[in-house]
């Protein structure tokens, strides 16, 4: 449900809002984004959104592999998919902490 509400909004921001900024606005946008994502609440929100997308998409890919009868055991596919989702989420968390 959350992804259904946030997903299209997020794509619209990067597809329409960011390219539509004035020529001098990206500099201000950088400062604002960095300040927002550097704050604990902003970092937590960004981490939640990114990890939600990673786990949601890898969960569906894991089941899609089983549906397509890809010759990989369900346990291995699960470890691969949820491991990738965990790793990418941790990477996002590390980069957010570094801001």
């Amino acid at each position: 449900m959350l992804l259904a509400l946030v997903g299209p909004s997020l794509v619209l921001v990067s597809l329409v809002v960011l390219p539509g900024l004035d020529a001098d606005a990206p500099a201000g946008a950088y400062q604002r984004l960095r300040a927002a994502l550097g704050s604990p609440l902003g970092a937590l929100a960004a981490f939640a959104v990114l990890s939600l997308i990673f786990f949601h998409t890898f969960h569906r890919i894991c089941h899609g592999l089983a549906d397509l009868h890809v010759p990989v055991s369900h346990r291995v596919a699960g470890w691969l998919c949820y491991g990738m989702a965990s790793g990418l989420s941790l990477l996002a968390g590390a980069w957010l902490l570094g801001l």
Partner: protein
Amino acid sequence: MRRPWQPRQTPLWWWRHPAYRRYMLREATAVPLLLYALCLLYGLYALGRGEVAFQDWLLWMASPPLQVLQGIALLAALGHAWTWFQLLPKILVLYTPGGQVPAAWLRWGSVGLAVFCWTALPALAWHWLAGSAV
């Protein structure tokens, strides 16, 4: 002891019926969304590296191939959300003292909430990033 019967299924079972094809198409929407999320992750990395790297990421995201990817990701996200709102009344059954909340109310209520989010969040982002007071 006899082993349970396991029907054989070919890898292309989903091609046999339009409903199965729609199901697989819905599942396939995960791929462009994952690629889009990886682009965002790269943007986060660029944000940490400095302003020049962030400007480069903005230019990269505005390039035609990435615009196409974002367009496909948008269609995938919208399609997935639409099918989710069709499923919602079957999963979420709400009761009031007067009886069960009609499925159409749940369906169209969630669609209304989604349309509000899809317009309000980008509009807020626009005002905030462009420097206007919200």
